[in-house]
């Protein structure tokens, strides 16, 4: 049985002033999405700002009622059985809010241990384990107001795990964390998944998904545009290779010529101060590269490189076409 079953799930918001007539508008934040997450999977929801990621998570963790469709977590309906769902899931969001500043890290954890009904005799040991897991041992006695962003985020993770949830929802957990901290966070999440926890993660960071996720759904404008393993997504959008050529004296007038070369699937240009980068997507780099260079005859060229498509290439193409 899937751990998370989402069926035609939809949510719209009414916004505008409740006092002024006519000014109310309806925003369809999530428009009938469906997906399933299997036990022990790490599932990524990847999408731009305003895509509907947080709205989806809020419905799954029972903070928000759907306006259409249904969702079940561990077999419990999020509308009919919210308490059963809440008992078994953990929820962590990114950023530095959501903690009691005046309390120590330890007391923050103690409080939530009570709310989740962690038996008093187990609390001390459970908190010690989690402090160790997130690397806050020795800092737990300090007030949270003195914590750095990374420390706060790690405390959040510990909080979300106090009751050993079967499913963990992470909404942009690495926002505002430095690269080393973000890597540690990914390691922690990977370790959790290896012990059987199912994780649903949202992020903007492509490499995070690429590295971590078993499966990804790309969401934009409240709809799922594509779903699959990172490999499937990459091959689906840009199978083959990417050729990048740095050009110093203008490339715009040659784009059509490059596009016309047999074997080229798409052409993009990224401009910087000194140069432009021609990004050519193709099925067969070896054949195409000489033809592209021929088309740029007479221009002063910098770096020429061939690389595998990244998830970001796939993502940009998907979201741009949407």
């Amino acid at each position: 049985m899937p751990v998370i079953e989402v069926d035609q799930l939809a949510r719209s918001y009414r916004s505008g002033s409740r006092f002024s007539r006519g000014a109310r508008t309806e925003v369809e934040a999530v428009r009938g999405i469906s997906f399933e997450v299997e036990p022990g999977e790490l599932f990524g929801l990847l999408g731009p700002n305003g895509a509907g990621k947080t709205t989806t998570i809020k419905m799954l963790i029972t903070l928000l009622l759907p306006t259409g469709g249904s969702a079940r977590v561990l077999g419990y309906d999020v509308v009919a059985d919210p308490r059963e769902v809440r008992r078994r899931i953990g929820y962590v969001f990114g950023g530095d809010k959501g903690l009691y500043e005046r309390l120590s890290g330890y007391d923050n954890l103690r409080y939530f241990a009570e709310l989740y009904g962690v038996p008093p005799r187990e609390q001390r040991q459970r908190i010690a384990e989690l402090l160790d897991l997130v690397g806050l041992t020795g800092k737990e006695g300090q007030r949270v107001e003195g914590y750095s962003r990374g420390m706060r985020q790690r405390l959040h993770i510990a909080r979300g795990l106090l009751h050993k949830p079967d499913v963990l929802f992470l909404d942009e957990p690495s926002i505002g964390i430095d690269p080393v901290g973000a890597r540690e966070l990914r390691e922690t999440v990977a370790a959790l998944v290896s012990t059987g926890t199912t994780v649903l993660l949202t992020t903007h960071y492509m490499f995070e998904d690429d590295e971590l996720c078993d499966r990804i759904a790309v969401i934009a404008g409240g709809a799922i545009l594509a779903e699959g393993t990172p490999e499937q997504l990459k091959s689906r959008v840009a199978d083959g290779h990417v050729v990048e050529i740095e050009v110093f004296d203008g490339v715009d007038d040659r784009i059509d010529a490059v596009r016309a070369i047999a074997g080229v699937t798409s052409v993009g240009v990224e401009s910087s101060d000194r140069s432009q980068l021609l990004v050519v997507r193709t099925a067969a780099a070896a054949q195409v590269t000489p033809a592209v260079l021929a088309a740029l005859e007479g221009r002063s060229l910098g770096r020429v490189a061939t690389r595998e498509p990244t998830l970001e290439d796939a993502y940009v193409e998907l979201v741009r076409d949407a």
Partner: protein
Amino acid sequence: MTAALRIFFFGGITSYRALFHWLTPWILIPTFIVEPIFQVLFFAFVGRDAGVGDDSFYLIGNAVQFAAIPCLFAMGNTIGNERYTQTLGLLLASPARRLPLFLGRALPVIINGFCVSLVVLVLGALVLRVHIPAEAWVPIVGVLVVTSFSCTGLGLATAALALRVRETAVLSNIIIGILIVFCGVNVPLSALPAWMSTISYVLPLTHGIEAARDLAGGASWSAVTGLVATEALIGVVYAALGMAMLFALEVESRRHASLELA
């Protein structure tokens, strides 16, 4: 202890420590000892000069009234500030029972209110040399507890409202103002316009102050039980109203995304 009781006692104290940001000596002593004494002295001297009431009238009115300050502000903070810390979403995403979760926060607040009014009463009695009969002290302490409870009930209702309208301090200040004017703190109820004294009967404080004054004047406990019971009942009604509002807010927020939860 069951999980619900632990949330009530332990969780309540933790929330009070976490969210009542007056808990530093720099705020507590001036607000809960110095200022109340000044207020007691001010009204006692004005009263002497105008020849209206005796010192005991003002001392008891103001001492009991000071229970309302922590009861309203601390209760407003411990619930309303969940919004600023952005922890409300985490609370509501937890499986914890809402009744002990929110009611537990009232217990430390009641104790706070009681301690403040008792300290003001004792210090004020010493400074003004007001004599309160020895046998009256125990029942008066009882009245202070009940009055702190009823003011906290009102505080809970205010806090629930504050979660909706967002500004707990403004709301609490307005209510304190209403209580001071309406509840017979410094003006006998008989001196108020009729409509005001009518309102005063559904506010906390009014019956408690009257009971404490009667006791200090030599009345027996059995003579004031009606007043004390009414005071307690008013507290229960406001607390129930507050809890109902909190439940309704949670339902509404899930439906209309009316509380920003994360």
